[in-house]
């Protein structure tokens, strides 16, 4: 009856074994407690971000761009639409999408994500970090023609180790796609200067040899550990952001936009703001290198690495099952005509864009029918004016409500 002498002996032996290595056992216990605390912290952090995302949605926050938590919270809300752009996001122009949809006029709000210098290679890492969260979800991505003449100038400044780690060690992406992305990342060595694990993993992937692939696979647990640490840091930083941004969420204010009237209003404003400046420009024109001659324009457009990155971005979106809308600004035809860059050269951009996106059957609005409209953009960097934004808003609204 009760514990047999054999069982008693077994328990005493097991306990003795544990107590024979007190430091190891204590260290293991401490690690288990820490991991449990980290998991609980991350879960609570995501819940807090979810509860706060509507009041943070229209704000331009660095943590939203550099992290994962806030974007993930946005994707989990039906009436929030992530909008990936670059410098146009932080210019206070009337009818800017984040402002236009702030009060959920047609049932949803925009979540702007991006910083000056953002282009496809950064955006694809940002989206890869969301992984399966993107499946079946709508999002908007803007494309600026100027980025197809400037090869990744903003990359190192906007590089996120968290996104890069999530991308290179993502199990949601095919091996082939990870390899292609690694090759592109290695063309920006400055960004990997202080990232030894990422650099090592990218080189292993790049080489396309069985032994190198095996080495990469051995690295995966280490990559996942690095990702977990960076993700916890993201949660911590997001906590600070939530504490600093306490203003209440906007109350929804439904209305049916009168698009023709809004376009007319925006056009009037653009004419006023342009004043005496020709070609609808609202600031002094900056003569970028690619605008100096028609040959230079065609050469830089043809050779741009942005096309390769756009291809990777579309492959990634396809693999993750996302539903994007691509919005491209049109070129300022009258201005470029004055510089000796004719429509036939500009058409190369529109045609190549259509060709790049057509195989994936993603929604695209390139507004090339506004190529001769001097008021769509307001400077020589293709930033949208009020008129440009209202057209964008209309396209975004139609996209959100389409099946």
């Amino acid at each position: 009856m009760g514990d047999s002498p054999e069982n008693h002996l077994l328990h005493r032996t097991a306990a003795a074994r544990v107590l024979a290595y007190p430091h190891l056992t204590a260290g293991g216990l401490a690690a288990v407690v820490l991991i449990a605390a980290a998991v609980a912290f991350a879960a609570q952090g995501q819940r807090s971000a979810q509860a706060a995302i509507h009041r943070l949605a229209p704000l331009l926050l660095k943590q939203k761009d550099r992290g994962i938590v806030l974007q993930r919270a946005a994707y989990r809300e039906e009436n929030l639409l992530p909008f990936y752009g670059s410098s146009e996001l932080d210019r206070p122009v009337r009818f800017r999408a984040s402002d236009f949809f702030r009060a959920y006029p047609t049932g949803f709000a925009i979540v702007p994500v991006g910083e000056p210098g953002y282009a496809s290679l950064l955006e694809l890492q940002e989206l890869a970090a969301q992984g399966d969260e993107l499946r079946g979800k709508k999002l908007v991505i803007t494309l600026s023609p100027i980025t197809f003449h400037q090869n990744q100038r903003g990359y190192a400044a906007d590089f996120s180790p968290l996104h890069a780690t999530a991308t290179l060690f993502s199990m949601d992406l095919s091996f082939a796609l990870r390899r292609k992305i690694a090759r592109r990342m290695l063309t920006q060595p400055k960004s990997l200067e202080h990232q030894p694990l990422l650099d090592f993993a990218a080189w292993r992937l790049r080489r396309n040899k069985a032994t190198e692939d095996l080495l990469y696979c051995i690295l995966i647990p280490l990559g996942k550990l690095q990702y977990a640490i960076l993700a916890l840091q993201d949660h911590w930083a997001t906590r600070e952001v939530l504490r600093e941004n306490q203003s209440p969420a906007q109350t929804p204010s439904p209305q049916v936009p009168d698009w023709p009237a809004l376009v007319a209003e925006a056009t009037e404003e653009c004419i006023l703001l342009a004043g005496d400046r020709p070609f609808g420009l609202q600031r002094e024109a900056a003569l970028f290198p690619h605008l100096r001659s028609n040959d230079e324009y065609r050469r830089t457009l043809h050779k741009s690495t942005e096309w390769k990155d756009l291809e990777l971005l579309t492959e990634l979106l396809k693999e993750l099952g996302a539903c994007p809308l691509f919005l491209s600004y049109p070129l300022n035809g009258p201005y470029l005509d004055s510089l000796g860059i004719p429509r036939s050269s500009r058409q190369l951009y529109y045609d190549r864009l259509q060709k790049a996106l057509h195989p994936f059957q993603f929604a695209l609005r390139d507004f090339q029918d506004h190529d001769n409209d001097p008021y769509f953009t307001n400077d020589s960097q293709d930033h949208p004016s009020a008129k440009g934004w209202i057209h964008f808003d209309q396209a975004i609204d139609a996209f959100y409500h389409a099946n």
Partner: protein
Amino acid sequence: MQISSRPIVHLILLAFYYLAIIAGLVLLYGEGDFTNPPFVYQDF
């Protein structure tokens, strides 16, 4: 009471000790750096 004569208590205290070390390291070095070098947007 001597801790050495109560191995379970010793183990628990050791576990707290290691937890304190790890927690201290996390507090000292755990905060991430999400800043980046400034980007000169235009250079022409």
